[in-house]
Structure formats: C-alpha cells, structure tokens
C-alpha cells in the first residue's frame, strides 16, 4: 500500500511511466502477434465449429479487457474518493476510452463469430445484452467525466458512477449461469478449462499481449492528461 501511495506522486509516476510505456508496447506487440500467428496456423480446427473457433484467441482478450477496464476504473475511483489522489482520477479517465473500445471489439468479434456458429449476428441473450450495457455505461462515464472536467468539478461524481457501474460485472460474469442463453457457458477458468490444451495455449499469449498493449495505451493517455493539466495550471498562474 505504501508503494501505491508513493506512485501517486505525479513526478514519480512519470519517471516510471516513461521507460515502462515502450517496454509494455513492445512486449505486448510481440506476444499478441505470436499468439495470433499460433492461433491461426498452429492449432487444429474445432470438430464442430471448424476454423471459426480461431476467433476465440482475440474475442476472449477483448472481453477480459472490456470487463477488466471497468474494474480498473472502479479501483481508481475508490482510491480517489478515499485518499484523494489526483493520479487516481487521471487513471480512471485514461482507462475509459480503451475500455470502451475493447468492450465494443468484444461485441463485434462475438457477433462475427456468432454468424457462422449460431446462424445469427445478434441475439438478445443475457451475456450479449449485459456486455452491450457495459459498453453504454463506458460511453456515459466518458460523457460524465468530460462534463465534470469542463465545469471545473472535483471528479467525485464520475468516481461514484465508476464504483456504481461495477454492479454490471457479476451480472456479465454469471449471465450464462443465471439465464439459459445462446452464449456458451463458462469454458475457461483460472484453474481448469473444457477446451483441450492443444487448442487453448495461444490464448495465453494473446491475453498477455493485449493486456500489455492496454496498459501501454493507458500510460500514454495518463501522460498526455498530466501534461495537459500542468500546461493549464501554468497558464492559470500566468494569467493571475
């Protein structure tokens, strides 16, 4: 916890973020490209789904990051409300756009996967609908955070909204258990999977790769936001 508080100092954070950004992007690119190549060429087609099962290697990371992004917003918002760290507010705002993009990509790749597998692009079932709601919750968060910043707010309202939005995460997670949906049940867990390891292994590379890329994007957005805030503070001082 002490190291987290130490990182909340913007100058210290920037000293760490500058070398970390290219390292995360490079590692993310290598792992993602290797995982995609392996998923497209080194695994057998599914006996039932055929080659369309290869969409798994990008669909699962986008779902993980769409939901993980909101968890990041909630943690940063909680940190901002409890400890008032300005960096936590910046982090929550920086996560919102990539989180929304990955939530959208999850919906889009799922839809593309659904057409050859289910025979439909879209179905209003529990998993798809709750994920679509999360995407809209992201858009509303971005609009709220922008409006709050424009009117000179202290960021408390978007932070409360960021925490309240977490109610959607267990709904998405357990939607395939609570409702009899078209979407398949849980097939990948932390300790076990119903997918054979000969087909599953490239997923760990794309999961790690996209996560590193996501972290790199968030760091770049945080650096841009901090630089903008410092520039505006300097202009205010000059005008005073």
């Amino acid at each position, binding site marked *: 916890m002490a190291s987290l508080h130490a990182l909340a100092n913007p100058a210290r954070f920037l000293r760490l973020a500058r070398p970390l950004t290219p390292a995360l992007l490079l590692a993310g690119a290598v792992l993602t490209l290797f995982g995609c190549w392996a998923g*497209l060429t080194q695994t057998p087609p599914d006996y039932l789904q055929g080659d369309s099962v290869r*969409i798994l290697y*990008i669909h699962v990371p*986008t779902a993980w990051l769409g939901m993980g992004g909101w968890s990041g917003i909630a943690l940063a918002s909680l940190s901002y409300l409890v400890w008032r760290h300005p960096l936590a507010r910046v982090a929550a705002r920086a996560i919102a756009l990539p989180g929304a993009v990955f939530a959208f990509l999850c919906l889009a*790749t799922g839809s*593309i996967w659904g057409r050859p597998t289910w025979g439909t692009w879209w179905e209003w079932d529990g998993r798809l609908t709750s994920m679509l709601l999360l995407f809209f919750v992201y858009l509303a968060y971005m609009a709220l955070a922008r409006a709050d910043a424009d009117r000179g707010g202290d960021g408390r309202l978007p932070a409360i909204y960021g925490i309240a939005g977490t109610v959607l995460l267990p709904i998405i997670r357990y939607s395939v258990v609570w409702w009899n949906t078209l979407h398949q049940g849980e097939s990948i867990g932390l300790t076990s999977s119903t997918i054979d390891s000969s087909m599953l292994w490239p997923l760990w590379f794309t999961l790690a790769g996209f996560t590193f*890329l996501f972290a790199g994007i968030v760091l770049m957005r945080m650096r841009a936001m901090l*630089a903008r805030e410092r520039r505006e503070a300097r202009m205010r001082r000059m005008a005073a």
Partner: protein
Amino acid sequence: MNQWLFVAAAYGLTLGATIALIGWSYAAMRAVERERK
C-alpha cells in the same frame, strides 16, 4: 459459408482498432508533451 472470411474480419477489426488506438494515443501524448516543453 467460408469460415476464414469471418476469422479474417474479426482479426482485421481487432488488430486494426488496437493499432489505431495506440497510434492516436501516442500522437496525442507526443503533441501535448512537445507543446509543454
């Protein structure tokens, strides 16, 4: 139904959007950091 068309569309969309997001974030960061200096 050629399944590879769907696979290509999903990979193209995801990788394209990720590259665009990285490029846009990098350009925005460089622009504001350069301006500040």
